[in-house]
């Protein structure tokens, strides 16, 4: 599969949002278009989270996880979702009796990478660690590592 993303970077705040994503996947013969498409929806959503907001925060002093809840461990919500187009290219390889190929993991593999590339394209400097949070974007805009 391959995914294309468009990102919007606010250069004053460093906030990155994702207005549009195009996901093209070859999952062989699609038996249930609704669930197959739904898998890609979820993969892209969590791929965006992976890229922009998810991180486990550990306190070095106590060894405790500080964000072990959905308040501070940030997963995208409805207002973070892009306009998402999903296309399945059904290539029937004849390699098995049903013609099906998996879609589980591929749905989420390219997303974060595409977002990181898009941020680099927008900002002109790469942010080389995930999540690409506003503080990192601001440092990149200021020309720091």
């Amino acid at each position, binding site marked *: 599969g391959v995914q294309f993303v468009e990102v919007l970077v606010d250069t004053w705040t*460093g*906030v990155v949002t994702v207005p549009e994503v195009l996901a093209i996947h070859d999952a062989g013969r699609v038996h249930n278009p609704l669930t197959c498409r739904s898998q890609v929806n979820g993969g892209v959503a969590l791929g965006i989270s992976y890229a922009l907001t998810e991180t486990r925060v550990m306190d070095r002093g106590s060894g405790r996880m500080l964000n072990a809840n959905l308040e501070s461990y940030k997963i995208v919500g409805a207002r973070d979702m892009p306009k998402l187009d999903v296309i399945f290219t059904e290539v029937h390889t004849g390699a098995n009796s049903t013609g099906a190929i998996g879609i589980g993991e591929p749905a989420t593999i390219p997303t974060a990478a595409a977002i990181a590339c898009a941020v680099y394209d927008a900002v002109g400097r790469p942010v080389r660690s995930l999540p690409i949070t506003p503080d990192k974007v601001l440092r990149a805009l200021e020309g720091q590592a």
Partner: protein
Amino acid sequence: MEPFSLIRPRTLKAARDRVTGAADKRVFKAGAVDLLDLLKEGLARPDELVDLHSLQGAEGEAMRALAPAEGYWSIGALNTLATIAASGLPEPYAALKEAAGSAATPGIRNRATLGGNLLQRPRCWYFRHGDLGCLKKGGESCLADGGENKYHAILGGGPCFIVHPSTLAVALVALGAEVEILGDAGARTIGAEELFALPRTSPLTEHTLAAGEVIRAVRLPAAPASQRSVYEVAKEKQSFDWPLAEVAAAITVEGGAIRVARIGLGHVAPVPWRAVQLEQALVGQAPSADLFARVAPLATQGARPLGQNAYKI
């Protein structure tokens, strides 16, 4: 969560008599949004929740009203954020409506009250962690100082470095609001900024209410029709996230020059922060993009970042 009783008094006297002197064993309850979080984490262990929604008569009405009075608008402390956001507050007070409409989620806004929003406790992950004894909970030191402090204060911090979580407080400070408080000596009115206390004064609490006092209402002072106010916020995540930083500004322009400027900064300090030097630099000037670009750094003058939050500047 410990078991508790819900008491539903009809009069304010009954409510206050119940809570005063009971220390933390009996607490007031309004929307119970922050209260529920505190109960679940074991940060509050009351035996009784004393409901304010059941107050009747004139007392109850005063806490639920949202209407103009003589020389000001009165917003009762029990008004929800949703009600405030959808209210008929006129244009000069737009910042408060925008702030109320942007906080949290629609579900929370339908339940959370003005009073509760102002008096909510900080979101600092050290404070909220049941196992960690930070300064604010009576421990020895602020764990965020030298620890994970990406979301903590750059202004006014020390010895505790929380940021005050109230979005409405930022708008109220910019609008020059006053807070009506009911206590032992009857009603008293203070400026919104005086409701909050810096950690260097009292690290264990965030507000200046005495035990058993209740916020009755907030007053927005009469503003010239030409006053305009606005609220802006930056969040990492656009659905249900706390602000990284937020600002509310109220400006009146007359004769081509800024006559009055009030600017409140949120989520950068342990109290809603007035950007006083920035305000002073704006008054008397003709508004322009150049002016704003030139004086904007005054907003964070004197900021002292911790290890991880210099980006807020």
